[in-house]
């Protein structure tokens, strides 16, 4: 089992269960490949065995890689990473996903050993790769060579070719030469006081296909531990190219972190090329350390770098530009021979050189009657001073089916030049080829051409349009969005609102009408009449008005229509309706006084004033009762 901690098993189980749920029966099994870094090693010399298990995107993914080497071969380190391979050679993207597991082994004694096939879990099955045979010879005492690495690989290519153990770890001492301080590696703070992993990118904002340098450093203040397992940064959205030729072998340096001196070791460095636009995550690099002063396996993870990736501008983008073609390129061409017979072939060799993300394919000037066969590619691409560059040649065989002077046209490669900040076009003119006509070979029996073409299914296809015809884009909808809903909702809502307001107005009018005849209003009216009568000195009218006001006030306060009640009985009736006896008596007395004034031909003015005051006080008291 891979030594990657319990989460690996959990993740594998989860992936496996997803795979089962996803209907694995219909999916193709993974393509397994097993590769050893060497066929012959010395005793004590580390070597690696690599297992790749790839499936088409969408199929259940493999997990839980395992190896069981013979007893005399010890697994000293392992790593497992996910893989994404995008193949665009056939004109459309084919995406393969899967895992890559690498085990580092060391032989204990000479001999010929066969390592049983590494296995991987897929759905409910465990699939085996191929066994690996290793010849182990006695140790020569020479320094062990490092494994080389392919400099140009697709996303998810080989991970960090780390030395096991960590440089200097086995001796438990610092490198022989004194490390020097590097200010560029200084950090403001340390995520861990003893040891931590950090990643760096040289650019945070790039265009699709532009190179970003991605480096991994381990900072430590302890004696160098061993790396017992490592997990690469997924880098699923990037194409990666190894920059460090011998990762992990650089001389350690000093770096200041928050005022404290740390030993910083460059573990790996690679050029990464973003595959699409967006805020792309590199993912975390994780190491498990042991040894030095670490008594238990200690896992450390780097930060997840986020790179803002945009497309090069659309404005001024040349026709034929392919997203990702970024760098500085030149294109040259050679065409041989220049004279052929009809149906013959010429060799076209195109050489693309430069720095950056060298395209995997070129757009050739295909046309009717000229057939371009698949090219043979050769390349030499490697980092030069931290920049990926080199050359790639494309050898085409071009079959010419027409006769005459055939212009092969020119090959163009539009690319975005990040240094100049604009598009450039690399061109190679192919020139003309003289094609001598030949008679087609005839079938001796049918007297028809031997290689007659198949019937054309598009023989009735209408012709091309040489000019743009009249076209008026459709008008915007008359009713759209909130305007449409406003128009739909408005009529019934308006009618409803109108009828509701009309009803409300009606009710208000009715209320106003009924309020006119309410006792309170009539009381006030009667009191106003009393004021007028008092002013004119009309005692009879005054008494009548005060009497009316009192009756109305009683009705308003108690509901009692007091005109039909004898004055003598009134206090009792009012008391029965909750009025105080004193108020009842005062009211009865006021009624009596009113009778006196009414029938007195010359009433005393002071009596009249007193009566008016008493009645007003009673009315006010009754009014309050009502309110209460």
């Amino acid at each position: 089992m891979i030594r990657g901690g319990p989460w690996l098993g959990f993740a594998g189980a989860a992936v496996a269960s997803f795979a089962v749920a996803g209907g694995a029966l219909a999916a193709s099994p993974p393509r397994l490949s097993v590769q050893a870094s060497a066929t012959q090693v010395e005793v004590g010399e580390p070597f690696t065995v690599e297992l790749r298990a790839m499936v088409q995107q969408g199929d259940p993914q493999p997990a839980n890689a395992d190896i069981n080497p013979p007893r005399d071969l010890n697994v000293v380190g392992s790593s497992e990473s996910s893989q994404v391979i995008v193949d665009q050679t056939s004109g459309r993207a084919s995406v393969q996903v899967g895992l890559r597991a690498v085990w580092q082994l060391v032989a204990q004694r000479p001999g010929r050993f066969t390592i049983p096939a590494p296995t991987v879990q897929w759905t409910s099955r465990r699939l085996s790769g191929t066994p690996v045979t290793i010849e182990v010879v006695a140790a020569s005492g020479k320094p062990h060579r490092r494994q080389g690495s392919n400099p140009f690989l697709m996303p998810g290519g080989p991970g960090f070719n780390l030395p096991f153990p960590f440089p200097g770890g086995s001796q438990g001492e610092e490198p022989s030469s004194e490390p020097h301080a590097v200010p560029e590696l200084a950090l403001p703070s340390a995520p861990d006081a003893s040891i931590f992993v950090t990643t760096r990118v040289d650019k945070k904002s790039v265009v699709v296909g532009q190179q970003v340098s991605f480096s991994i450093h381990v900072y430590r203040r302890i004696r160098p531990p061993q790396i017992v397992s490592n997990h690469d940064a997924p880098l699923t959205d990037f194409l990666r190219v190894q920059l460090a030729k011998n990762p992990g072998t650089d001389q350690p340096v000093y770096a200041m972190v928050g005022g404290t001196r740390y030993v910083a070791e460059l573990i790996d460095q690679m050029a990464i090329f973003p595959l699409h636009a967006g805020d792309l995550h590199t993912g975390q690099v994780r190491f498990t350390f042991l040894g030095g002063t670490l008594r238990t396996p200690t896992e450390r993870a780097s930060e997840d770098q986020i790179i803002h990736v945009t497309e090069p501008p659309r404005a001024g983008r040349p026709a034929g530009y392919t997203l990702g073609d970024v760098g500085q390129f030149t294109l040259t061409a050679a065409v041989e021979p220049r004279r052929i017979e009809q149906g013959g072939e010429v060799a076209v060799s195109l050489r693309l050189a430069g720095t950056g993300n060298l395209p995997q394919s070129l757009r050739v000037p295909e046309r009717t009657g000229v057939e371009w066969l698949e090219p043979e590619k050769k390349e030499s691409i490697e980092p030069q001073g931290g920049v990926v560059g080199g050359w790639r040649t494309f050898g085409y065989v071009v079959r010419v089916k027409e006769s005459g002077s055939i212009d092969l046209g020119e090959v163009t490669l539009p690319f975005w030049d990040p240094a100049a900040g604009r598009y450039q076009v690399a061109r190679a003119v192919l020139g003309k080829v003289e094609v001598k006509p030949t008679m087609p070979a005839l079938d001796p029996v049918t007297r028809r051409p031997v290689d007659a073409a198949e019937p054309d299914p598009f023989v009735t296809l209408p012709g091309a349009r040489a000019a743009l015809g009249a076209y008026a884009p459709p008008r915007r909808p008359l009713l759209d969005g909130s305007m449409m809903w406003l128009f739909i909702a408005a009529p019934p809502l308006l009618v409803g609102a109108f009828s509701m307001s009309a009803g409300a107005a009606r009710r208000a009018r009715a209320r106003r009408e009924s309020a006119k005849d309410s006792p309170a209003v009539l009381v006030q009216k009667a009191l106003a009449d009393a004021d007028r009568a008092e002013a004119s000195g009309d005692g009879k009218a005054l008494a009548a008005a005060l009497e009316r006001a009192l009756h109305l006030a009683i009705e308003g306060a108690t509901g009692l229509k007091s005109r039909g009640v004898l004055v003598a009985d009134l206090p009792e009736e009012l008391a029965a309706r909750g009025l105080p006896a004193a108020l009842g008596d005062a009211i009865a007395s006021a009624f009596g006084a009113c009778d006196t004034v009414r029938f007195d031909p010359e009433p005393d003015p002071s009596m009249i004033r007193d009566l008016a005051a008493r009645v007003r006080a009673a009315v006010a008291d009754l009014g309050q009762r009502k309110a209460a």
Partner: protein
Amino acid sequence: MRASAKWLAATGLLVAMVLAVGTAAADDRPEDLFGTAATALGHGEYAAAIDAFEALADQGFVHPDASYDRGLAYVMRYRAHADRAGDLGRAAAAFEEALLLRPGDHDADVALDLVRAEVTRRRARHTRDSIDVRPTLDRVVIGLASEETWGFAALAMSLALALGMVLRPRGGRAHIAGSILVPTAIVGLLVLSPLAFRARALRLSTRSGVVIAGEVRLTDDQGRALGGEPVPEAASVEVGERRGALAHVRWGSFEGWVPAADVRVLGAP
């Protein structure tokens, strides 16, 4: 003498710059790029024509004739046996786009039929059955009329409801008419408003697309295969949400996620 020479040089430089800018601007015009592409197509240089037509589409230039010629360029590459995977799908997408922009384009209709027939013939050669997909009922009903038609119908119902509300409180025949209009209009509104709403939501949230890969399998949003029939090349799909490298599509009653690169979204008018 020296001063006049300087003036002459400066004027010449200015004229050259103006001319250069003018030329660059002229080259950038979509009409000129179309002319370049159409000329290449006329000469059988389908690779150059495809590049130019695709650049035109990348610029956001939308015209049925450009879409139609782009389709012909892909067909020309297919006829020259230099086709790439998905060329027939791209041709179908271009013809579909031409028809979307100009629904009465007879040539585009004929060309689209020929492309789809060739796709079917090619699938039959690989013993793959042709798959008959039917749209779901909601799409059928919504597709019976345009979004605007549904909207106007709902508006008519709204007006009828308002009229019924006015007539109903009155007496006599007006009351009878109102009593009939109100419930009828309410039912009509309840049916037509959701249709108008859904038609608009579909227009805003989905786009027409065509499959431009040999065939694509529908997956869930995690990329796990859903099973069922793969969507064949040149099939028309409804493209919805896009999430990373995946796009949500609906093909008849089937829906799921496919690689966004395998579907070409048609240019909107």
